[in-house]
């Protein structure tokens, strides 16, 4: 198989670049080692589109974060992804913190990000549940929250709809440079390779280049609270990093849950364990910001791993090997920077190599998804009259219908596992965590892919859920 460009890794960076390239007349493939797109760092982060005041001026992080942030309104409209500019507030607990806020505000000015310094009284008007410790805060109104799962899925869906090939469960094990380009896994040929392998970016680079950088895996643990009517915070709240606690945040999510975390600790690349000591420390730190956090509403804890580059800035450059481009070390604010990173890679590197023409039939829009539970009674009624499956509710906690699941399965970047379905539609995301609906979701996946129930996996191909059939089981 011969491609103009092969992208290694279908995280948010790989997906953004793939979609960006799908505008042009070129053959693009994405190789992903996991059973779904966006399944590593892109799957477990704070889901924040940072405003961009925080990175030091002059860094790639600062430039691309601010640029990227501004692109999200239009992008999420095209991709049908939930995105809300709810604003962020960085909170100060003492005079020293207030000095830090002032320093951050200066940095914001340098980065051209609008911020407002608020005193306690002003803060309480917009966030009434702040703790007694909070003295001041720095409001950045352009900060937003996003559905990170569907951002990645819809980027890839749109890329595939515009001609990109996606290969899941395809781990890159060898890259050979030949006269006519690259040969990957003795199978895929490409003129150009973009390394978006995230945590494994250094290992991929070293398949063809000497070691020039190192990716240090850094783990962040989080707690997720259920959604409940009384929204106890309305903005993304950060704590000024200090000796009292590291940058823990409390934030609403686009699905009306609340996210609290992360911790930050060096770990191994596949260590997604959570532990009580860290979770308790997150709770303690978060409680410095907000009073009476309803921790009894915790429905899940999880850990995500960020690819921290040793020099602490993004690495976006052509490597020593010509036409092999590294886009690595994309830790926070990577999600917020992702569209700007893709733009930079495409316009400043790829298109400089060869002048690819624009496709005539490129369509930037993802066909809107129907969310039955968000519709009014009358609208819902109309949709169910058109298609009965919208009236059969599979996930009772999140009110997701069979019709929505069947729609999703027919998309071009469909779910192959229980987790992939959960990421896309929130099936099993609620209070019961799939206890009530997982078996129904299994049936729908099995029917669609013409498989037995015990061939449906939770996530990776090896993560089976069921073993053998019981003897004498009465199968329909």
């Amino acid at each position, binding site marked *: 198989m011969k491609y103009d460009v092969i992208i290694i890794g279908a995280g948010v960076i790989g997906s953004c670049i793939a979609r960006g390239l799908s505008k042009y007349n070129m053959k693009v493939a994405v190789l992903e080692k996991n059973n779904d797109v966006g399944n590593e760092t892109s799957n477990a982060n704070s889901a924040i589109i940072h405003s961009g005041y925080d990175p030091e001026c002059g860094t790639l992080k600062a430039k691309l974060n601010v640029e990227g942030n501004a692109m999200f309104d239009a992008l999420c409209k095209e991709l049908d992804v939930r995105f809300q500019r709810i604003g962020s507030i960085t909170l100060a607990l003492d005079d020293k913190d207030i000095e830090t806020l002032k320093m951050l505000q200066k940095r914001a000015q340098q980065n051209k990000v609008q911020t407002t310094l608020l005193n306690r009284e002003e803060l309480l008007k917009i966030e009434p549940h702040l703790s007694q410790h909070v003295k001041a805060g720095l409001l950045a109104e352009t900060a937003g929250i996003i559905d990170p799962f569907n951002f990645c899925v819809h980027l890839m869906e749109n890329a595939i709809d515009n001609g990109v090939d996606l290969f899941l469960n395809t781990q890159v094990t060898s890259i050979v440079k030949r006269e006519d380009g690259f040969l990957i896994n003795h199978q895929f040929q490409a003129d150009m390779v973009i390394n978006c392998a995230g945590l494994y970016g250094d290992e991929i680079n070293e398949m063809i280049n000497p070691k020039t950088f190192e990716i240090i895996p850094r783990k962040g643990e989080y707690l997720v609270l259920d959604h409940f*009517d009384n929204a106890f915070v309305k903005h993304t709240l950060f704590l000024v990093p200090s000796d009292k606690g590291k940058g823990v945040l409390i934030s609403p999510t686009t699905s009306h849950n609340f996210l609290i975390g992360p911790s930050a600790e060096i770990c191994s690349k596949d260590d997604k364990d959570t532990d009580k000591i860290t979770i308790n420390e997150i709770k303690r730190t978060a409680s410095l910001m907000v009073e009476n956090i309803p921790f009894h509403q915790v429905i899940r804890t999880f850990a995500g791993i960020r690819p921290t580059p040793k020099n602490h800035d993004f690495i976006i450059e052509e490597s020593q090997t010509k036409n092999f481009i590294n886009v690595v070390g994309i830790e926070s604010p990577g999600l917020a920077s992702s569209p700007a990173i893709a733009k930079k890679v495409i316009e400043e590197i790829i298109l400089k190599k060869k002048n690819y023409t624009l496709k005539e039939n490129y369509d930037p829009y993802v066909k809107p998804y129907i969310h039955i539970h968000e519709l009014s009674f009358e609208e819902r009624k109309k949709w169910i009259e058109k298609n009965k499956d919208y009236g059969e509710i599979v996930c009772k906690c999140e009110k997701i219908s069979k019709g929505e699941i069947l729609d999703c399965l027919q998309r071009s970047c469909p779910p192959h596992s229980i987790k992939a379905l959960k990421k896309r539609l929130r099936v099993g995301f609620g209070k019961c965590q799939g206890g009530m609906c997982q078996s129904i979701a299994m049936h729908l996946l099995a029917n669609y892919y013409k498989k037995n129930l015990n061939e449906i*996996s939770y996530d990776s191909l090896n*993560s089976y859920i069921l073993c053998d059939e019981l003897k004498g089981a009465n199968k329909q």
Partner: protein
Amino acid sequence: MKNVDLVIIGGGSAGLAAALQAKQEGIENLIILEKEPYLGGILQQCIHNGFGLVQFKEQLSGPEYAQRYIDLIEQEQIPYRLNTTVYEITQDKKIYYTNADEGCVCLQAKAIIMATGCIERSAGAIMLEGARVSGIMSAGLAQKYMNIEGYMVGKKVFILGSGDIGLIMARRCTLEGAKVLGVAEIMPYSNGLNRNIVQCLNDFDIPLYLSHTVKKVVGKDRVEKVMIAQVDQKMDYIEGTEKEFECDTLILSVGLIPYNPLLEKLNITLNPKTKGVNVNQDYETDFDGIFSCGNALHVHDLVDYVSQEARLAAKGAVKYLKDQSHHQENLHETKAGTGINYVLPQKFARCNEDKIDFKFRVTRPFKKCNIVIKTDESVVKIIKKLYLLPSEMEIVSLDMKTLQEPFKNLEFEIKEEC
């Protein structure tokens, strides 16, 4: 919009008994709304026996117990809807529900009985430590996969929590050829019925590790190992007590929580102990004309008591429908004193009642003790008990004539004999 006198949400053991009682007391215009494609609720996957000993004086399996009620529902021609999800209950008791055949329907109810059952506490809710891999499964889901879908869930199984479903699944997995390596219980006593400890663990030589919990789950794609450790009184791990078990499955039986999202949306406060709502002796909630019973109100250990409680809630609803008189004013409150976790009903009125059944659970196991019942400071009744267990709900019937007014609280407490 259709007017209905009584809407029963949930067609499991509570909903079915409530509907029957209401119909037998003359309520004709009623309906049951059930989310699953069948009536009977969780009973349909409980293929073990032991159901019906109180109600029918015989040993039935879950489906048999359910069928007795379903037959009566059919006989009485009580209408029901399956595969039906209720989206919302409004302040004026309109019920919005959805199913594939009818689409979206709005009912105007006069009274509502909430019989929505409970859900299992998840790995997330207990903040289980270690890897988030396949093979961690709640006991009820494992039971559904085995008994309804006909698939084995694992070959080497460890169980966290000694709740009844976990114990039942220990036996079920063993009988189907799996090796059950052990059951860890964080409390120093079991949370299951004694008969289940004997019949499901002891009979199969499955060890029960009391005061132990899972410290870490290890695995890449699927569970490969669990590490358990002993805990002290503060629930902190005791170093050096770790034990490892190589297994492919961790079944969780770590508690059931009444499932009341619809009532939470109506801003009815949940009781922090029961996790259900508060009710009076008619099982009416703080919301006028909305009743709650069964596992949606508080988690029961025997289905027979669920059915009984649902009948009482139905009686309450019928009384409400017939004369609109109820006991929402000048109510006495019950109080859980020393050794008592909760008492139900939380409120009651003395008038027009001969007897009220009070239900409660103790906070820990007691031997040779007295249940002391007091109105404010004066003792009304003392009941001697050889033992009391948190896993077994106690019922005390009190003759209202024995209570001397005026008093505010009726307090229950446990006094151990010295």
